[in-house]
């Protein structure tokens, strides 16, 4: 661990030294950054993950269009080095506020929105070849987990089955967690906290002998890494519950194959064996959800178009069938719709039935 830290620090110093070398020779200071866009990612058939291509872009300091991002990236590097030196961690939000300031005698803020500092940090991960966690910058805690699992986290022993109604809050850095006991047959991940609370209240993790994990919307890196570790280290199947809409399916896609912007760390986050439990378009018929359909808006059509064209979905006949049906249905549905058949329908009927029948999408 210490060795890794020294290496990260060294990498950061190298970034600074490279820029300094340009300055000393009187040239335009340059950073070479791998391009993070759809054009520069590939779907690797073998590993079934999105991986990054080799295209890079040069970012110059003396260029009106580049200067801002250039300085933001170097600023992020200096911040990360500071953090490693004092061995403290900052959240993305805190990092944003550390970087946000107005340049003297101007109307220019070094960063205006958190999205800018987030991107600078993501760029830095690529240049310095270190993950955000290695740079001592964490995301906010956003997810909960419950199950018959005992872990050690920073010297504390935590039992995930004895944490009351809130469950264990998943930290953004799960690398240092040590699993002491894992008694579960599978993991159910859901994008909504409301459904998690339902399952937790009904003690589904106890009844079905599983682990339940939720995020709020898109899964954070910490959640994705935790899911991957449970899957790889403890051979637990991962089942995913999302709303029946293109956005929900996109969350599933990121979880399974990795995302475009984080393609460089897919092998540490993606879970190619993850399965979608629901909702599927077939569920609408099967569970009589027609009354609860919500009409599509323009953005939904756009998003559906986008994901149905992803290379990794293109080859799946089953997925194309789902896309086609959704396009015709011109509507979406939420997980909460299931509760129309009774408050505990999800816990008592839907989930057990689906898992028993292996009724899921790959």
């Amino acid at each position: 661990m210490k060795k890794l830290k020294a290496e990260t620090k060294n990498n950061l110093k190298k970034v600074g030294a490279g820029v300094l070398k340009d300055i000393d020779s009187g040239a335009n200071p340059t950073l070479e950054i791998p391009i993070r866009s759809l054009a520069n990612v590939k779907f690797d058939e073998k590993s079934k993950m999105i991986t990054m291509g080799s295209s890079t872009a040069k970012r110059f300091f003396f260029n009106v269009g580049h200067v801002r991002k250039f300085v933001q990236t170097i600023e992020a590097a200096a911040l990360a080095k500071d953090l490693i030196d004092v061995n403290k961690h900052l959240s993305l939000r805190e990092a944003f506020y550390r970087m946000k300031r107005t340049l003297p005698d101007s109307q220019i803020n070094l960063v205006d929105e958190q999205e800018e500092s987030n991107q600078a940090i993501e760029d830095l991960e690529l240049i310095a070849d270190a993950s955000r966690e290695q740079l001592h910058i964490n995301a906010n805690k956003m997810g909960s987990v419950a199950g018959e699992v005992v872990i050690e986290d920073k010297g504390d022993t935590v039992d995930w089955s004895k944490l009351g109604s809130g469950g264990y809050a998943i930290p953004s850095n799960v690398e240092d967690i040590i699993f002491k006991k894992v008694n579960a047959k599978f993991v159910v991940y859901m994008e909504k906290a409301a459904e998690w609370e339902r399952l937790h209240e009904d003690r589904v993790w106890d009844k079905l002998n599983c682990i339940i994990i939720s995020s709020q919307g898109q899964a954070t890196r910490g959640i994705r890494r935790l899911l991957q570790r449970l899957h790889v280290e403890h051979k637990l199947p991962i089942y995913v519950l999302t709303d029946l809409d293109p956005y929900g399916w996109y969350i599933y896609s990121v979880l399974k194959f990795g995302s475009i912007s984080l393609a460089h760390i897919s092998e540490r986050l993606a879970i190619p064996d993850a399965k979608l439990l629901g909702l599927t378009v077939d569920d609408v018929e099967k569970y009589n959800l027609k009354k609860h359909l919500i009409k599509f808006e323009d953005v939904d059509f756009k998003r559906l178009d986008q994901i149905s064209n992803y290379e990794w979905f293109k080859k799946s006949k089953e997925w194309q069938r789902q896309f086609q049906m959704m396009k015709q249905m011109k509507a979406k549905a939420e997980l909460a719709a299931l509760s129309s058949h009774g408050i505990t329908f999800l816990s008592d009927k839907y989930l057990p039935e689906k898992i028993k029948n292996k009724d899921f999408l790959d």
Partner: protein
Amino acid sequence: MTEAKLITAEEMAKAMREVSIAEFFEKNRHLLGYENPTKALITIVKEAVDNSLDAADEAGILPTLKVSVKELEARTIYNILDTNGYEVGEVILEGRKPMLKIRDRYAKYEETKKSENKSEYIFSAGQKIYNVTETKTNGDKQIELFSGTDKLKISKTPLGRFRITVEDNGPGIIPKNVPLAFGKLLYGSKFHRLRQSRGTQGIGISGAILYSQLTTGKTAKIISSTEKETASVELRIDVSKNQAYIISEKTEKNKQGSTGVRIELEAEGRYIEGKQSIPEFLKQTAISNSHAKITYDGPNGKVSFDRATEKLPVRSQEIKPHPYGVELGIFSRMLSSTKARNLKAFLQNDFTKVGPKNANEILRLSKLENIKPDKLPHEDIEKLHRAMQMVKLPSPPTDVLSIMGEDLILKGLQKELEAEHFVAVSRPPAVYRGMPFAIEVGLAYGGKLSNDQTAQILRFANKVPLLYHLSDCATAQAVEEVDWRRYGFTQSVGSSPQGPLLIFIHFASVWVPYTSEGKQAIANYPEIVKEIKLALQDAGRKLYLYVNEKMRAHHVKMRRELFEKYIPELAESLEKLTEVKKEKIVEKLVKINKKGEKIEGGDKKQS
């Protein structure tokens, strides 16, 4: 039921009579530019100034003009508005007798009830009673108008009576002609000829006198000095006879020796300053006539517009029509009234730029015999007309027009406008409907010109400023059709450019195709619009050399300043990463910044 009375044609004929031109214009004064009190004042000054400048140019004298407008008495007119805000009548309380007019009918004034701060005027019209209450609070008058219990909307127009005097140093008018020149509409030397001049129709100054007498009842006072005699005439226009009615007339030897005409009128109107005003008209006149000295003594003080050159403009010359574009109707009239004995002679003598060779060619193409022109059968007139258009002819003579020239356009603009750069383009003459015309354009850029408004257009026809009806004018169409973005300005589709720009356009021709008698807009013949566009594009390219250089310099400066802001930030971060002192890094970065855009990886140069 009463029996309908039949009216015979004879009876109808009795009711018909010839309407004199003066009478016609009394009823249609809007056609002459007197449709509202503001415009009326401007028109009076314009007509007098046009005449003075024309006379001086023709006599070869450097014009010196004195214009004076003095307010004699101020009144307020209250316009009565309908629910849509349209004017339907007016109320005047000051002056001789309170007056209320609504829907072209004068109401009968009944009485005024006065109390301390309030006066109530009562009018009647048929069954209706109108009440006007005037209240005074701190010297401010407020009025309300009621028709029964209905309150009517009103708006306020300050109106005054003005004395307008225009004096020139021209050759003067001989005493015998003074009543004709001033007291008769459609009299003048300019109507029947093809020659570039300011006035054309012989209506202008007598129209002004007519307006003066309609609104004030006062006479016009004219003093005209030729080298020999000085005539002082006081006259009014006899509307039904279209001739001058002389009040007094005195002719004596010219004692001081200076020549010129002085006219004094009294008229009702509204005086304003600003975009469409007398000072603006005079300022623009000074731009297009930089050889003239004009002093103006207005209600708000004196202004003087000085000469920028002592050189007289080229004198315009009278020409015969050019065969291209002569309309068939005019052509057949020319055929029947010509003195030429045969068609060949007619073509050579009555047209410009037609020699024996070309006359033969026209006859050959039309397959006509060389007969007497008035013997030409109707169907052959068209043949001849068509043949004329097919022969290649030289352009009309260029020296008949009195153009300003690029040098004088620049001088005129420079002396009256505070801008930082000027360009001018004088196009060679072209032809529309057989009339030679020339387009001249000037552009003023930067300085005190407003950055975020659409460009102002100054339009001139034979050196006379056009202040009204911009949107009907060929010049506006041409300005809108030019792509100004090429020359560094912003422009939305189908509108004028935006930026610190002023566009000067001069249309010079032996005949100006105005869209109406008000003479405020040039008709948009395709040939004219095309020429204006070419001139504007030419001038735009010239200006762009300057604008581009300026924008580039600005861009380089902005760019350098932007990097200067980021340099300390970068240096500080780099110090943390490398432990090299930030001052050293700043120093080196500042040095690189001075290299500007040429550095590798810098932004691409703007095209």
